[in-house]
């Protein structure tokens, strides 16, 4: 195989997985940089951005002082990049592609070429998104939600956002079909559904969410494109007044339709962000507690129920649109019901720790931190799921705090856990434990430094959309000093990632060499060589038992790989 076929246009799931992961990590750091710029503006509004302010140009930051329009661009693109180009590619594209076929004993994905196309669609979508910053009027600036009619009349960057999203959605749809078919068709002999590792279940359900939830947004994206380019009015109402003048459009459209179509995707999308993370955490907890997962079957049922329910809760994002108390009652009821499987999942993971002799290695530390952080994120979501408190909290920093606890110290910690855990499989070398812990502890502290004060600001009523952090609003006076604490925490968080970056590259070259199964794990990926060759396994895989046979009484070792029969 030539260089291009092997490393660039590869059809090997492991290379594609690594391509996804590296792309996802790069976009995560890109989205993080956008956020750090925003945090400067929030902490020091009206003051020139140090070091790079003068490079941003007069249309973005004249004299280095950030314009609110540019702040809006950063906000919209931070959300878009983090969700669609950072977390999803890393969690689903990266870990899913690399780990899932190995964990089910497959030689590759069901459709390797489709897999390659899926990655390159993501790549093109990402390039379009980043390139949109250089368009006249800048990148999209109507929030990551692109609410109509604001987005319909926004500058050209919004058109690029829509084109980019169409590529990203196409990528996810192709990928999800591949995962579903692979999981159903390519499981090793003896690997029944209830012998699948929980990570595979999580990816399997996630793929259904992507497959069923994304098409409405793709359709909505095309409709918004037509509103912007073809003069239609799908989301533009009659008599819409823009800047004091009636907009000359045919009208008759519904801005609320966009919100329904968007949230029909975006709420399942939340579970797309969280389920693979739970899958990763479950694997690492089982491995490092040296016990089977507590309640594996109830976890599987919960994740399936969660997948179904995630399609009937979307309008809890829309309580204040005036859609009526009957609809609000329905959606708040489904939302409350959905907390049950979520609590089952988290409880199972917590109970799995009970009585265990825990190995506190770096992946386990990140996995353990995930549990309370996700817990805080989940519990703070309950008031938002009830329409009465949501009226007060909607669009405040409370909401930002809530979902960032889910996806930042929640999902992203789980993704770090996964990187530390599967790094030896991908490279044959282990990452440094010292640098790993140097990465973990400051990250944990700074993450909370960034997001915990957001709850306080939210309760004080500070809107999430203010480009100046609320300094011009007298009611926010008591809580605006928290902005500086949050910003310094964010910059501290950036510094805390340096040990990870150093560790990542250093360990690739000079990490301690390890064997095929350095964690003494039971699942099938550890039965392949590290790194696995093209085709993955050097022996036939026949599975004889469940995924977490740790500390089985009467066995010589405290782990029994899925393909090894128990000793009599």
């Amino acid at each position, binding site marked *: 195989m030539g260089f291009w076929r092997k490393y660039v246009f590869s059809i090997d799931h492991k290379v594609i997985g690594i391509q996804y992961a590296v792309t996802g990590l790069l976009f995560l750091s890109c989205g993080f940089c956008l956020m750090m710029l925003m945090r400067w503006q929030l902490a020091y*509004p009206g*003051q020139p951005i140090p070091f790079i302010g003068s490079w941003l140009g007069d249309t973005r930051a*004249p004299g280095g*002082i950030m*314009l*609110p*329009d540019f702040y809006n661009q950063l906000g919209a693109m931070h959300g878009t990049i983090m969700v669609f180009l950072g977390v999803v590619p890393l969690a689903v594209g990266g870990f899913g592609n690399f780990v899932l076929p190995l964990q089910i004993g497959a030689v590759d994905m069901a459709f390797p070429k489709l897999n390659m196309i899926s990655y390159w669609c993501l790549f093109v979508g990402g390039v379009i998104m980043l390139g949109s910053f250089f368009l006249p009027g800048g990148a999209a600036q109507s929030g990551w939600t692109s609410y109509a009619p604001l987005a319909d009349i926004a500058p050209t960057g919004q058109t690029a956002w829509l084109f980019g999203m169409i590529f990203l959605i196409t990528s996810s749809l192709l990928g999800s079909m591949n995962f579903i078919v692979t999981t159903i068709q390519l499981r090793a002999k003896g690997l029944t559904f209830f012998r699948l590792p929980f990570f595979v279940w999580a990816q399997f359900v996630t793929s259904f969410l992507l497959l069923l939830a994304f098409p409405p947004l793709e359709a909505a994206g095309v409709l918004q494109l037509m509103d912007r380019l073809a003069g239609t009015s799908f989301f533009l109402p009659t008599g819409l007044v823009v*800047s004091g003048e009636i907009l000359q459009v045919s009208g008759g459209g519904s801005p609320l339709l966009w919100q329904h179509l968007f949230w029909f995707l975006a709420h399942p999308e939340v579970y797309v962000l969280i389920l693979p993370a739970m899958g990763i955490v479950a694997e690492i907890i089982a491995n490092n507690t040296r016990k089977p997962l507590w309640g594996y079957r109830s976890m599987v049922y919960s994740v399936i129920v969660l997948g179904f329910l995630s399609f009937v809760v979307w309008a809890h994002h829309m309580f204040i649109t005036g859609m009526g108390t009957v609809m609000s009652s329905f959606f708040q009821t489904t939302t409350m019901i959905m907390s049950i499987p979520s609590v089952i999942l988290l409880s199972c993971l917590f109970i799995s720790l009970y009585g265990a002799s825990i190995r506190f290695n770096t992946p386990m530390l990140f996995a353990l931190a995930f549990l309370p952080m996700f817990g805080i994120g989940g519990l703070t979501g309950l008031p938002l799921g009830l329409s009465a408190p949501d009226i007060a909290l909607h669009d405040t920093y409370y909401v930002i705090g809530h979902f960032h606890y889910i996806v930042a110290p929640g999902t992203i910690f789980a993704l770090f856990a996964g990187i530390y855990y599967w790094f030896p499989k991908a490279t044959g070398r282990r990452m440094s434990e010292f640098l790993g812990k140097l990465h973990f502890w400051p990250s944990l502290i700074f993450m909370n430094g960034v997001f915990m004060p957001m709850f306080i600001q939210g309760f004080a009523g500070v809107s999430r959309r203010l*480009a*100046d952090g609320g300094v011009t609003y007298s009611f926010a006076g008591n809580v605006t000093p928290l902005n500086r604490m949050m910003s310094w925490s964010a910059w501290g968080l950036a510094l805390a990632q340096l040990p990870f970056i150093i560790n990542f590259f250093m360990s690739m070259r000079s990490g301690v060499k390890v064997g095929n199964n350095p964690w003494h794990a039971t699942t099938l990926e550890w039965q392949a060589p590290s790194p696995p060759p093209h085709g993955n396994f050097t022996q036939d895989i026949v599975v004889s038992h469940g995924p977490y046979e740790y500390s089985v009484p009467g066995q010589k070792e405290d782990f029994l790989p899925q393909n090894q029969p128990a000793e009599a």
Partner: protein
Amino acid sequence: MRNSLFPLKKTSHLAATLIVAAALAGPTFAGSITGTVKYDGPVPASMKRPLRMDADPGCAMKHTDPVLPEGLVLGEGQTLGNVFVQIKSGLPDKEYPVPTEPVVLDQNGCKYSPHVIGLMVNQPFKILNSDGLLHNVHSLPKINTGFNRAMPGAVKEAEFKFSKPEFMFKVKCDVHPWMGAYIAVMSHPYFMVTGPDGKFTIDGLAPGTYEIEVWQEKLKTKSATVTIAGDEAQTADFTFTPPQRKK
């Protein structure tokens, strides 16, 4: 010898330069049109009601006296300010030099100053933020490319240009809905805006017959035809009356 010749040479250079410059600039004319614009009618109640700026305490604090709207600015004797006066037709069809100094629009006291502006195509248009408050300058042209530039308190200056002639479009602040100004982008320099005394003078006109038009934001336009025979000053006065209500 050299020393005595040098001043002579310098003088001849200067003279030559002046001759060439005069030839390039074309002939200068002294014809002009002067006049006064007045308003004959009652002042509508909406123009006597002070603006409410208390939505932004930063704006309200900048004024101790009530601030009246600028839609009908009257001087002594019902003279009318903020009237845009221009030569509508009759000018030779040629390209006029564009001034390099910018036309300035200031945001001061949460008002635009001046309220009506004329500038030439591609003439620099500088916007100041003397208030030190968050404003956004939203231009609403139909022919030119519009802009919507937010100016936080710390951003004191922004500069734009308009590339096509366009008569009268609004500039507004979306933060402070009472703020509005009007801009005319002209292809020639024969225009001006009256002060409260309602007086105007448009000079430098060659002999010819011109249509002169006056525009006021509420009272719309009036025009007159004026013929200039030589280096003379012609007069054209205008009186606006309140618009007739449709029955």
